[in-house]
Each structure stands twice: as C-alpha cells, then as structure tokens.
C-alpha cells in the first residue's frame, strides 16, 4: 500500500517539475517575439503560461499535504507524542472536510466548464477545472494514509 502511495507521490513531483520547467518557455517566447523577428508573436503564450501555473499550484498543494509542508501556526505549547497525534487527527478531520468540498462541488465546477473553451487558445476549460476535484481526491488519499498512522500511535500508547 505504502509503495503505491510513494509511487503516486513521485509521479506528482515529476509533474510538478515538468510544470515549473515548461512555465519559463511561453514567457520567454513572448519576450523573444517582441524583440526579434525570429518567431511570430503568439498570443496563446500568456494563456498557456497561466494554465500551467494553475496546475503547478494545485499539484504542489497536493504534495504539500503528504509532506506536511502547508504552513501552520504553532500556538499550542509543546505536546507529548500522544497529544500531538490527537491534535493531528483533529486538524486532519478539517482538511478532510475541505477535501470533500473540493471533490463534491469540484465535480459540479468541472461539469460547468464542460463545453467551455478558453478565450485565446480554445483549450477545453474542463482540463483546467478538473484540477480542483483531482486535488480533493488526492488529499483524501494522503490524509487517509496519515490518519491511519496517527491512529496507530494513539493505540500503541494506550496499550503501553
């Protein structure tokens, strides 16, 4: 099971690197076309850059949940292992709610963009909107995984 999660995690990092790397290309083309006659001034470059950017943000936000890198404010005093696991579970329930919102209304959102085309490049908009429910689903998986881990910590310390 962990193997599958690791694999998916690595795939996401791969895609993230891809989006960041590609992001530079359309903006460079945009500048080049303005200052040289080498390439025609494409107008789809700006839109493509924006859409890659949206995917980059959403993929990064998915990875952030598994790596625990979404910024938190630490106002509680230092807790023991058990209390810490308990707090994690509570905060994960809230993230879980947000994940479910992203899945439930995200599907409606994607559905709403089903027949829409983007203004310039005429890309189908669902290809962008689907990032939201995909993010929700991914959070659900990752949160579920660490949920189980935290429950184990709790149960272990009860047994001791």
């Amino acid at each position, binding site marked *: 099971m962990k193997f599958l999660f690791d694999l998916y995690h690595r795939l996401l990092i791969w895609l993230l690197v891809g989006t960041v790397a590609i992001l530079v290309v359309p903006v460079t083309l945009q*500048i080049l076309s303005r200052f040289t006659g080498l390439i025609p001034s494409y107008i789809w470059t700006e839109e493509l850059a924006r859409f890659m950017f949206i995917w980059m943000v*959403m993929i990064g936000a998915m990875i952030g949940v598994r790596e625990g890198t979404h910024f938190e404010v630490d106002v509680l005093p*230092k807790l023991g292992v058990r209390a810490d696991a308990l707090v994690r579970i509570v905060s994960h329930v809230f993230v879980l709610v947000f994940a479910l919102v992203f899945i439930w209304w995200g599907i409606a959102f994607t559905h709403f963009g089903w027949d829409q085309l983007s203004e310039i490049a005429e890309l189908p908009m669902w290809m962008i909107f689907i990032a939201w429910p995909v993010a929700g689903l991914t959070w659900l998986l990752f949160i579920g995984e660490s949920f189980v881990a935290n429950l184990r910590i709790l149960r272990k310390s009860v047994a001791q």
Partner: protein
Amino acid sequence: MTGVALTAGSAAAILFGGFFLLLIARVPVAFALGLSCLPILIIEPRLSPLTLFNETFKAYNSFILLAVPFFLLTANLMNVGGITDRLVRLSRTMVGHFPGSLAQINVVLSVFFAGISGSSTADAASQSKIFIDAQVKEGYGLSFSIAITAVSAVLAVIIPPSILMVVWGGVISTSIGALYLAGILPGLLIAGAQMATVHAYAKIYHYPVYPRATLKEFLVAALQSLPALFTPFIIVGGILLGWFTPTESAAVAVLYAAILSIFVYREMDMKKVYQALADTGRLSAVALFCVGTASVFGWLLAYYQVPRVLLENVTSWGLGITGVGFFIAFAFLVVGCFLDAIPAIIIVGTTLQPLAESVHMHPVQFAIIGIVSLAFGLVTPPYGLCLMISCAVAKVPLRFALKDTLIMLVPMMLVLAACIIWPEIPLILPRLISPEYLK
C-alpha cells in the same frame, strides 16, 4: 444592504472567529482560510460553495503571480550554480574586517541576494544553511546566528526585485517600477541598521574579526561577481525602460541565472537543476495555494462591506497623514504575525487603501509602509516564515531565537518609523529617476 442574509458584524465574526479557532487546532493556514468561508457560502442564499471555486480560479489565473515561482527559481539556480558562492566571497572582502565579521557578511550577502532574487523565504532557506552552522563554529551564539540570518532575509522583499511589490502593484494597481525604486533606500537603511546591531553585539560578546582583505582580493572577487551583480540592473532597468513587464522580468532573471550558472561559472548539473525545479514548485505552490483561499476570504469581507464598517471608526478619529501611516504600519504588523505577506496584501492592503487615500498619502509611500511592515511580519511569531525556516534548519523551536530577533527588530522599526514620518525616504529615488511613474 438588501438581499444579504448576514450583517457585516456577524459575517466578520464567522470569518475571523472560524479562522482563529482553526489556526489553534493547527489546521494549515490555507485550509483554515477556505474552511472559515464555508459556513457563509452555505448560509447566504445568493452565494454557493461554487464561489470558492470561481474565486480561487480567478486568483490563480493571473499572469502577475507567475513572478513568484520565477523569483524562487532564480534564487534556487543561484545557489546550485555557484553565484551565491561568489557573492559570499565578495561580501567577505568588503566587510570581513568589521567586528562580527561573519554576521556582517551574512547581512551584506542578503543585500546582494535581495538585488537578484525577490523572495525572502528563498534567502532564509539558503543562508541558514550557509551561515548558522559556520557562525556557531566560530563562537557566535546560536540564537544570535539564527536571528540575524532571519532578519536579514527580509531585505529580499524590500530591495528590488520583490515578489511583494509585484503582487502589491497587481492587486492595488500601483506602478511596480516606482515601487522598485522606492524600496532601494529603505532597504539599504534597514541593512545599515542591522549592521549596526551586529556591531553592538560583536562588541558586547567579543565576536571574532577576520583580517582585512587586500584591495587586490576585493577587485578579484568583484570582477568574478560582476556578471551576477548586473541582474538587478537588467530587471529594474528593463521594467523602467518598458522592455518587459514585471512577470517577464522575473523570467529574464531565471534565464540570466541559468546562463551564468551553465556557461560562466559552469557548476550546474542536471540533478541539481531537477532539485532546484522541485524545490521551486513545492515552495511556490504552497505559498500560492494560500493566496487562492485568502482571495475568497477577502472577497467575502468585501461582499459584506466589512472593511467599510471597520474603517468608519478609524476615520472618525481624525488622524493626520503621519497618524494614519502609523496606524497602517500597526495593522500590517499585527496581521503579519498571523498571515503570510501575499494573502495579507490581498485582504488588508485593499481594506486600508481608502484610508490612505482619505489623507492623501502617496500610493507609493502607502505601499512601502505596507511592504516593509509585512516584511517584518516574516520574522514575528507565531507565523514568521523566515524565522520558522531558520529555526527549522538549526533544529530548534521558534521560541529559541525569539529574544534576539525582537532586539534586532527595534532598530529596523526605527527605519520604518522614519519612512512614515518622512515620505521623502521612499519617494526621493522614484522622483529623481522616473517622475512620470509617480503620477
């Protein structure tokens, strides 16, 4: 207000109350912002949770915010490509003979770094690795070393280029070229204040001093760093001359850093590039995801006209321009303790703009007060990203370096106060170099 089920007061209570409760439960900030909007989106008949999607989509679908990953990528490429190493050497020959040598180098390197990258978090991440261990080995206090690394990192968003200025210019429509010029003098003053602080510490605690570098050493180091030191001129100059937009200038910085690393310094391999790209994606996505949910939060505040109600009180106090300036700085400093700077600009910057206008404060001065205050928020607890990063690198809890950080903030606050009392400090450079931007 017809057709609105909730009053401004109850909407604000749900939004802020929910947000703070979720923060205490250690829900990540980005999620706490989104979740606290949820009850209102469900209660209010005219809204639906779909608003959450429309507004986050609109926030991310922005050409301006693209500058964030670009500035981070520039910083990461600088680190893996050998640019940072050259700048360390140059700083060493410039201030190495001052008391507290290594800490002085730390501050000066931040100034150079700030001129190339626009991201304080990237500065804190890279310099914590370079300096904290090295300083402790030379006999500096650990808490002092963490604190000086974190507070000098905030220069990156004050000295151009700056992510915060790009976002501010986009959200509150102020000329980014003018903001870049306006940030130079306050940034250098803050750096000076930090060097003075280091000097005082070094005298009290007898920190080590390096021998003075020879002129030849300085010239060699300067020559080697020269190509890298051109970056700020390309970025700021390119914008002022109208060659490229701020986002494009950030992409140019990426290309320039890549070219220097590959062809001039020749220290980059594919594995390092992959790591730089992955780090950039991670950090910028996590920061930007928060911008999306913060936009929904800010949108709801505006929907219920909460800012207007809040400011009605303040306007009745009859503050002058300086009083309003201090009020704005105070508001941003408080908010900066709990929120990251970009969401804070979206939520609070737009809220305070009418107040600044009501006393005829110059929009550029307003922006500098806001950005400098929010930059200080990067090292104030409980949510100070730069301090969190430096403490994480040193593997100590945030409170460990708190006292020294707060001491170092005092002289920096004086510079902020000076920028409020004398608007000329931020305004003089844009006025001299490109007065047309101030219109």
